């Protein structure tokens, strides 16, 4: 089942499509936050089988079109 996440970003160039990147995302079912290594794309067509990644500006405003995300690994850290 497709899951939905979101992340906060103002500058979309920080989300390099098709590359492994690290980012902090929230599970939109519980709002649990975690840092992950993932591949993202600007549409689900570019990343078949991916989960949904909604984007919000860092002041919280939701962008219209969701991206896609495939989580490769959940990363450890001070709070993970």
């Amino acid at each position, binding site marked *: 089942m497709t899951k939905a996440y979101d992340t*906060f970003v103002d500058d979309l160039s920080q989300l390099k499509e098709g590359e492994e990147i690290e980012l902090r995302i929230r599970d939109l079912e519980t*709002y*649990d*936050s975690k840092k992950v290594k993932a591949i993202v794309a600007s549409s689900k067509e570019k990343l078949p089988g991916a989960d949904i990644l909604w984007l*919000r500006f860092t*002041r*919280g405003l*939701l962008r219209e079109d969701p991206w896609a995300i495939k989580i490769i690994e959940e990363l450890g850290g*001070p*709070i993970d």
Partner: protein
Amino acid sequence: MAFSDLREFVDKLEAEGELVRIKQEVDWNLEAGAICRRCIEVDKAPIPLFEKIKGYPEGYRVMGDPLCRIKRLAIALDRPFDASYGDVYRDLMKTYSERSTHPIKPRTVSTGPCKENIYEGDDVDLFKLPALMIHDGDGGRYIGSLHSTSTKDLDSDWVNWGCYRMMIHNKNHLGGYVAPFQDLTAMLRKYEAINKPMPFATALGTDPVGMLVSITGVPYGVNEVDIAGGLRGEPVELVKCETNDLRVPATAEIVLEGHILPNVRVDEGPFGEYSGYRSSPRAPGIVYKVDCITHRDDPILPTVNEGVPTDTSHLACGVAWAAEVMSALRREGLPVVDMNVIAESALFIAVISTKTPYPNIAHRIACVAWGCKSAQYIPKLMVVNDDIDVYNLGEVIHAFGSKCHPVRGTHPVPYAVGNPLVPYQNYEERLWSKGCRVLYDCTWPVDWPIGVAVPQRSSFKTIYPVGVQEKILANWKRYGFEE
């Protein structure tokens, strides 16, 4: 008589028509928050007590904005409320000032209702508490928006209680924002200097005075719990935490115990703040690791939906800040009459009325006021003559518009400690907590001769002879008018 816990306060608010129990299931994800917000914005709406939260056991409850009307604040301090806004505000300011100068030390008891349920270690799960997603787009579920977080100074017996927003990161971590000039930050600097975790204990759902002292603040080095005792007229009963040496109110609904991770910052926010805007972006914030959760059976989680005035912060802080500033001004012998930290301005404007025995007294008033801890949050200060009712915003804005000279009456202070939550500040000012202030001198210059230079105020009470006024008032109904 003081409330022993939040539940007594709930019953009193309900009896006074100030609280409604909502038995219909509501969603923690935005629905409950939106109801809280609407209750704030609809005139005379009571506050909600949600008794069934989607996905949570029967009995888990959430309470919205308990102090967001002057009447509720008066009830919290056991003061009369059947009077005008200004009269109640003035009475609360006086009460706060008098009682807080007679602190009462707390009493430690062996146990209390807050220990009815205890979860430690792997059993700690913040998601088992019905924290709300308060505003759409917030950085997370804010479990802490009206609470008392206790921390102890490393070098003294000072224990601070403060209300610093707390967002759930995951099952046992919270994120938080603290301003550089706040007490928790001052304490944390010492722990971080030696890379030592700082123990904390957050009490959610205390009696109303506990909440009040935590959001309003007291001078540096003073224990809020002693002031709470003074405001209550009896000691607060405290109980020791399970996992550290801090003490929390025995009747608290929920207690989160743990430690703040030294020198760790993780993105936190954004959050719809008391400024009425979600003005600060997601940014690195401090991290609380939760080691233990204790709570009463059927706990009540209080929450504040901060935003466009008037919510709990605006009223409670306004009264307490005015009490602190007026006490300081009077200690200095300044002939001030009244003060209103205007709730409708989101606490960014305060107006002080004064007699003007000598020129430029507004400057001295501003210097003393801005020397107070609480006034750091007030960037705009108006000083008006004592014929202005500071609670009548029509009179205040008239004085500002008509008596404050745009050049000679406007006195900017270009460099000051800032508050990053102020919406008009730019990125650099927010980042470094740089600020500025302005004094609006709305008093007539003392060197203007009466009758020659000072314009006469043209109102019914000021521009007609007393005899004419009395005749008109006596005949008012005979003229055909109603009251």
